[in-house]
């Protein structure tokens, strides 16, 4: 705390009769300025002067153009580098597609390789197995790297195999892995990790995906997930290790991660899309960049929390530095690392769904399309698919992180220990064979039919159900809109629009003054300077209006989240029963990709600010609930008991003892709520809004990336401003309470 803030602090506590309080002065000045602005408009500036505007957007756009056309690094054209990266990343995505849902003529050759290599491994060693695998893959590798220059006699071998298979009618053998086998694999994995309950969850999910004809789209989404997760995890682990080993790396990388945490998903798409053409590769890169920081964070945490004695016992066992890392530190931090993987998977999934606007096919793409077409029945079917897949991914990875091996495993036979694996292999082989005769084994049919004596009968068609739901929703809306619309319009007209107009009417110096005052009061000079710089960035570049629209939406949404979330948190802290119901709900709500919260909003309120706020609330209320709950739960028992002994009533205790102690924690929850609200406003842009998020979304479709990058940055800037001010406030408060 600086001297100035310390002195204002004294004035506050010295009963504020003579000296008005800090905030009294600040708001007094702000109010006077506003009144003045009302009486004589035009004196205080409400926009930045156009002639002084910094043309950041044009500058960025020309930079991007330059990068894409002329820039060179060490004599290599930048565009060639991006193209090479793009091509390099296309290959794994393509192969994931072949394996998961497309199939490819080379697939049969790959399987042949796997079988032969396994046989070699079994009868010889793993090393020989790997050598065999590489040898067998030569034709494909030659074709891949040499293209036309490859000797045809060799590269055509896989094709001959697949033609041969086609000849005997076994076309299915070079198709993708049959969905039956994938589903069985997931269910077996569920059973291995979490027993029958998780297996059942997996089974229901797989069945849903198959029956509702979203299997292929799920697999499209999963192609990017399966490629992005290992990449993000690898990069994250490497960066994490680097940070723990090098002070310089820590100093450079940590603030970048902090910044990245404040940047909403959406904002990653514009810069990547600027450099790479729209398509799966862009989605992949943005996803990897977005999903990597949690892995790095968990790696750092995992490595730093390995007990000192374990590290030292490793050293005394004679580990070299490398052995220390790979044999001691990383395995000991396995659980934390696996939680990192869990986060990577969840973030990846959420991002891939959103990346649909940058060319990622799959569930998100379909959902966006059906929302824009107001095909709500289909949207609901897809939303459920996304939700259940998210839950399964979460439970599987979390379950694996918490899974412990036990010593009884050794007593079992090899078959017993590997029974899940063996069953899977058997199902895999059987399903491939079955696929030769039954197409539906490969990809689920679009509708369930039954061919009986009286011909083909449709048992279940998700399209029909969707249409039926559409009708139902339309019917419901027709009746309910009589009630819903007036409420929506009334609130919009009398509450949302006025607040919004106020923010747009307000002269920017007033905003800067109030925010700056808060920054100075709680964070001192450094935070003040940071906030001023960030505010200046959107004011002088001509983004004031869009930024204020976002600010207003986020403020209102945050306010509502607090009004809803804090009491719920208090309630949960008071009653075990409520907590037992509420906390799992919170967990689940956080598992869902933010995208799906748009569905109910559109269903009930169509588009507009009211719908946007409505979509933000379920997503962003969770931290408010959770942190309130935790803050109250963490109060030491003795403190509360002392208050009881002093004869306080329940209500007095809450207001005078518990909430004041929990408030720093609650403020951190508020911080999270703001971050999530900001991220969600960017998502709501997909259904129509006019704020920064919309700029990001539009920039991708109009290829005006400079604007999108700036808008994304300003969303992050708002987040950082809020984070620094609230964070410093909470820190100060904690110090005062002696719980920092």
């Amino acid at each position, binding site marked *: 705390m600086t001297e100035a803030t310390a002195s204002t602090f004294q004035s506050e506590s010295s009963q504020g009769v003579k000296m008005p309080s800090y905030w009294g002065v600040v708001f007094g000045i702000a109010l006077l300025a506003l009144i003045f602005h009302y009486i004589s408009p035009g004196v205080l500036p409400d926009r930045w002067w156009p002639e002084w505007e910094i043309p950041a957007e044009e500058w960025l756009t020309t930079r991007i153009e330059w990068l894409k056309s002329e820039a060179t690094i060490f004599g290599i054209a930048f565009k060639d580098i991006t193209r090479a990266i793009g091509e390099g990343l296309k290959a794994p995505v393509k192969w994931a597609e072949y394996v998961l849902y497309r199939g490819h003529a080379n697939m049969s050759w790959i399987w042949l390789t796997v079988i032969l290599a396994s046989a070699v491994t079994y009868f010889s060693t793993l090393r020989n197995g790997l050598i065999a695998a590489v040898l067998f893959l030569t034709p494909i590798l030659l074709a891949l790297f040499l293209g036309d220059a490859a000797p045809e006699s060799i590269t055509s071998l896989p094709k001959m195999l697949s033609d041969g298979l086609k000849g005997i009618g076994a076309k299915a053998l070079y198709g993708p892995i049959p969905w039956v086998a994938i589903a069985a694999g997931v269910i077996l994995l569920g059973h291995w990790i979490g027993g029958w309950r998780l297996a059942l969850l997996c089974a229901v999910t797989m069945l849903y995906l198959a029956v509702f004809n979203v299997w292929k789209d799920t697999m499209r989404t999963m192609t990017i997930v399966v490629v992005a997760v290992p990449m993000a995890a690898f990069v994250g682990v490497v960066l994490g290790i680097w940070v723990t080993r090098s002070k310089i790396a820590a100093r450079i990388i940590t603030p970048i991660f902090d910044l990245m945490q404040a940047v909403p998903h959406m904002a990653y798409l514009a810069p990547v899309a600027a450099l790479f053409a729209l398509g799966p590769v862009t989605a992949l890169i943005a996803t990897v960049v977005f999903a990597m920081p949690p892995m790095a964070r968990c790696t750092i945490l995992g490595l730093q929390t390995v*007990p000192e*004695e*374990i590290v*030292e*016992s*490793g*050293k*005394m*066992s*004679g*580990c*070299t530095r490398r*052995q220390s890392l790979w*044999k*001691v530190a990383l*395995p*000991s931090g*396995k659980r934390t690392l696996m939680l990192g993987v869990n986060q990577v998977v969840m973030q990846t999934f959420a991002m891939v769904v959103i990346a649909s606007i940058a060319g990622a096919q799959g569930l998100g793409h379909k959902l966006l399309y059906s929302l824009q077409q107001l095909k709500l029945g289909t949207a609901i079917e897809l939303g459920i698919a996304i939700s259940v897949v998210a839950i399964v991914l979460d439970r599987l990875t979390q379950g694996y992180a918490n899974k*412990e*091996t*036990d*010593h009884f*495993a*050794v*007593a079992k036979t090899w078959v017993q220990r590997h029974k899940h694996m063996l069953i899977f292999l058997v199902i895999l082989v059987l399903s491939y064979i079955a696929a030769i005769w039954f197409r539906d084994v490969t990809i689920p049919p679009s509708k369930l039919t039954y061919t009986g004596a009286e011909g083909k009968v449709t048992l279940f068609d998700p399209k029909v159900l969707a249409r039926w739901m559409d009708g139902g929703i339309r019917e419901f809306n027709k009746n309910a809109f009589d009630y819903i619309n007036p409420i929506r319009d009334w609130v919009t007209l009398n509450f949302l629009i006025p607040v919004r107009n106020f923010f747009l009417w307000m002269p920017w110096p007033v905003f800067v003054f109030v925010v700056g005052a808060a920054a100075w009061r709680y964070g001192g000079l450094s935070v003040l300077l940071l906030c001023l710089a960030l505010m200046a960035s959107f004011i002088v570049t001509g983004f004031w209006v869009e930024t204020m629209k976002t600010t207003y939406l986020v403020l209102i949404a945050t306010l509502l989240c607090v009004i809803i979330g804090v009491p719920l948190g208090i309630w949960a802290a008071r009653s075990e029963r409520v907590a037992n119901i509420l906390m799992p709900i919170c967990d689940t709500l956080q598992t869902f990709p933010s995208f799906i919260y748009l569905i109910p909003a559109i269903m009930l309120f169509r588009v507009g600010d009211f719908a946007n706020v409505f979509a933000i609330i379920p997503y962003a209320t969770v931290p408010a609930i959770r942190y309130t709950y935790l803050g109250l739960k963490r109060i030491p028992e003795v403190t509360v008991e002392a208050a009881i002994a002093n004869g306080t009533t329940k209500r007095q205790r809450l207001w005078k003892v518990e909430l004041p102690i929990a408030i720093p924690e609650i403020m951190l929850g508020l911080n999270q709520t703001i971050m999530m609200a900001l991220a969600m406003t960017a998502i709501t842009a997909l259904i129509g809004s006019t704020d920064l998020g919309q700029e990001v979304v539009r920039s991708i479709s109009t290829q005006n990336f400079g604007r999108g990058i700036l808008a994304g940055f300003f969303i992050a800037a708002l987040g950082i401003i809020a984070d620094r001010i609230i964070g410093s406030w909470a820190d100060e408060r904690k110090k005062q309470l002696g719980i920092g």
Partner: protein
Amino acid sequence: MSAEVQIKCRNIWKIFGDNPKRFMKRHKGAPTPEALKEAGYIGAVQDVSFDVHAGEILIIMGLSGSGKSTLIRCITRLNDPTAGEMEYEGRDLLKVSERELIDIRRHKMGMVFQSFGLLPNRDVLENVAFPLEVQGMDKAERVQRAKDMIELVGLQGRESYFPRELSGGQQQRVGIARSLAVEPDIWFLDEPFSALDPLIRAEMQDEFMRLQQKLKKTIVFITHDFEEATKLADRIGIMKDGRMVQLDTPEQIVLNPADDYVAEFARNAPRERIVSVGTIMKPIDPSAEGTVLVSEKIGSVAQQVLTASRPMGVVDETGQIIGSVTREDVATTIFSRDAA
């Protein structure tokens, strides 16, 4: 006890703080405790010199925070001393390369930790085999070796248990087996039994004695428990505020404590089991009747001496009379706090 010096420490300092090296230089290599305090540095080990002889059990004692752990962590180079010299079998321990240090740890030193330091993701067998694994010993050989060690500490049958499935005492047995797997020449134990409850601790001490009789290693052992120390030690070093205030045989510590701090440690020690006849022996007395052996502990001859009407003669191993011992001497040694 052979006098061959295995580890030689001279003027070891370990100072914690922002820039200990510069601080040392400013105080010409010998800062006073006051100077340390004023500058906000912690002098965990201050100017400690001593030798560890091959084959001896050297026990280090001292109150919590007196620098015992830091001292042996300096010797094992888990901490780098701020100043001083250390030699291991004539090699300068502070100048060895990283590679040599790793080699020394792999083959010469073993260490047992207070809270075990077992790897949670490996079972008992893999934990014990771990030091062999990092040396690159091939699998069959190291498994065999680890199994031998596990049997030595009496954990056979639990090879595939994970540390979390074992009791504290069992975990420490694993720690001991692991530290012995490489057949170290010198064995460091930092309060190996203090995390255990008293019954198990006594059991583990006996176990430790049994092992030592079999293995005859050089041992540096830290403990809080003076009785434990007297049971095991050839010599005891007592530390206070980072300094080694006395390093001597248990007898000398009991009979001639260097200061009140040491005396306080020795106060409740069972002297009759520590002091030997030779220590309180007087010159030959012609009137003596009967004889006792010079190396005998007082406790085992007390009854004989106390019930005799005359002083008793003291003989060495060859039966030659070399002195005498009186009733009074035995009585004061046993009962008086400030005898001798």
